[in-house]
Structures are given as structure tokens and as C-alpha cells.
């Protein structure tokens, strides 16, 4: 795998406090990340392309979000990201000024990769890179799988990787596409072994 400088990695930071946004931006930039900051979960969802159902070319390598925000919380954002097939492999870090174990566990169970207690420090930035690299390798793996399956597809009789016929696969796929409001062009059979296809 090629070694890329951190300056090629893009982090999306979400926090309703201007002061905290300024801080996290400085911390990230000092650690050589490209940064986009937004002040709410809805703006984050808009940026990530989850609100209009269109396919966006968003290159975000990590999302770091405050937990407690008016309107939707960081936890709500985490859930939306994990429910999205296109975004679920992006690592998510939750920040909070309160040390509440049940809150921390809830976030980790929902798929958060890390939990930072505020105030976030420069030393915390070092913890981000491993999650970004893991996310990138998952993304790469998924892309490779998709490419492989596209090559294996035949025009009339399509089979899934475990040998079952296409009609059963596409049912599962339609459900996902509707949930996300994906345009027809994006519907692509997904043959992961976790789907029950029979």
C-alpha cells in the first residue's frame, strides 16, 4: 500500500460551538489534515450527500463530531452514517465534555471508532490515523469486490457469489436503495456473504 501524507486526508468536524470548531480545526490542521467544519448534524448530512439522495463525490476520510448538540445529536449522525452503505466505512469519532460511561458505550456499540473527552488535545490527533487507514482499506476492499463481481456478471443469467440466482439478490438491494433514495443508476447488485439470499 502506498504511504500517503496526512495532508491528503480530509476530516469533517461537526460542533455547534464556534469556539470548539475553531479549536478542533486548528488541532486538525496542525496535524496536517484538510478540514471542513460544520455547525450542525443537518449541515453534515447535507455535506455528505445524505439529504438529497444524489450520488456525491465526497472524499471524507474521518468524521469527528460533538455528542451534545441542539437538534440532532452526534449519536444521531453516527447512526445515519452507519446506516448508509456508501458512508458506513468512514470512521467516526465522538467528542463530549461529559464523561458518561453509558453514553460512551452506546456510541461505541453503534460503531464509533473512538471517543474523545473534551478538551481535545494535540496528542489525541495521533489516534486518528489508524482509523483512517482502516477505513481506506475497507473502502479499497469493497471496491475490489465490486469490480470482481462486475467482471463475473453475465448478461442473461446472473448469479451471486454463492451461486444463487439474481432475483433474490435484487430484492435485498432494492430495499437498501429505497432507504437511501438512490437513483436507479446506482443500483448495483451487492453480493456480500452477510445477506441471506435464499
Amino acid at each position: 500500500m502506498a504511504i500517503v501524507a496526512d495532508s491528503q486526508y480530509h476530516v469533517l468536524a461537526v460542533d455547534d460551538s464556534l469556539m470548539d470548531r475553531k479549536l478542533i480545526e486548528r488541532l486538525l490542521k496542525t496535524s496536517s489534515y484538510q478540514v471542513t467544519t460544520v455547525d450542525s448534524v443537518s449541515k453534515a448530512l447535507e455535506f455528505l450527500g445524505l439529504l438529497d439522495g444524489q450520488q456525491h463525490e465526497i472524499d471524507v476520510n474521518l468524521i469527528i463530531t460533538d455528542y451534545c448538540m441542539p437538534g440532532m445529536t452526534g449519536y444521531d449522525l453516527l447512526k445515519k452514517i452507519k446506516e448508509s452503505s456508501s458512508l458506513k466505512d468512514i470512521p467516526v469519532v465522538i467528542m463530549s465534555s461529559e464523561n458518561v460511561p453509558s453514553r460512551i458505550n452506546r456510541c461505541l456499540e453503534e460503531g464509533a471508532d473512538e471517543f474523545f473527552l473534551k478538551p481535545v488535545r494535540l496528542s489525541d490527533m495521533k489516534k486518528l490515523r489508524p482509523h483512517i487507514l482502516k477505513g481506506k482499506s475497507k473502502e479499497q476492499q469493497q471496491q475490489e469486490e465490486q469490480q470482481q463481481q462486475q467482471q463475473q456478471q453475465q448478461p442473461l443469467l446472473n448469479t451471486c457469489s454463492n451461486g444463487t440466482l439474481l432475483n433474490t439478490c435484487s430484492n435485498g438491494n432494492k430495499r437498501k436503495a429505497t432507504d437511501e433514495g438512490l437513483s436507479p443508476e446506482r443500483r448495483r447488485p451487492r453480493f456480500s456473504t452477510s445477506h441471506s439470499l435464499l
Partner: protein
Amino acid sequence: MLVNFPNETLPAFFSRRRNNHQTLPFPLSEGYLDEQFHQLEELQDDVSPNFVEEVVVLFFRDSSRLISNIEQALEKHPQDFHGLRACVQQLKGSSSSIGALKVKNECDLFREYCDEENKEGCLRSFQKVKKEHAILRQKLEAYFQLLRQVGQMERATPSYN
């Protein structure tokens, strides 16, 4: 830039800088600010030369608003301790972001009084929070003013660099 104000004289400060001795800035040594403030100073550089002061300005903007929210929350009858606690927690969060130690500690006490639904305790704590907040504002204003003066002196006297 770390200055031992008000006890340190300017020549001593320059001498210390020449010899590269790092010491705590005055507000840290007097307990008003903690290590987090030092972290902010570490983030300041040529790219962001006024970072600390900018963050401090934002803090006082936020905290003044929160203090006023708390004031309003305390006037509610019957007392909404849950809403009050949320405001206090926000103020605690902001305070810890700049390392405002005394304000933060007082907010922790205030929060406990909210949890106990102790109105008297809340009122007492609030007075203390306001007092510490005002003192901190004074100290930091003096600190940044001094840094500006030192900066000017340094530019005027290159032999000290």
C-alpha cells in the same frame, strides 16, 4: 510566549527567553488557568499568530451569553433544574476548552447543586462563577496587553531576539 506577570520584570523575561527557559505563564501559576491554556499557546504559530487571543475572545462571547441564560433560568418559578443544569454544563464545557480552571471547578459545584435541586446552593455558586469569570477576564486582558507591549519591544530591540 510565556510571561511571569506581574512579578517578572521585562529584562528578566527577555533574559529567560534568550536562554530558552520555559516557565508557566502567570495565570497558570496563580491557578486561574490550567494546562489546557498552555496547549492553546502551543497551537499558536506563524500561520495562526493570534490564535490564543481569538479563542479567548470567543470564550468570553460564549460564556457571557451562557451566564445570562443561567440568570434567566434561575428566575423561573418553579425552578427548572434540568434546564439550568444544561446551561451550567455548557459553561463548564467552554471553560474547560480554554483551561479556565477556577470557573470550571465552580461550574462543577454548581452542577452538583442542580442535581441536588438545592436552589440556595445554586444561587451561591452562581455568584462565585460570575466573580471568577470577571477576574479571569481582567487577568487575560492584562496578559494580552502585556504580550502586545513585549512584542513591540522585541521588534524595536533586535538584540533581545
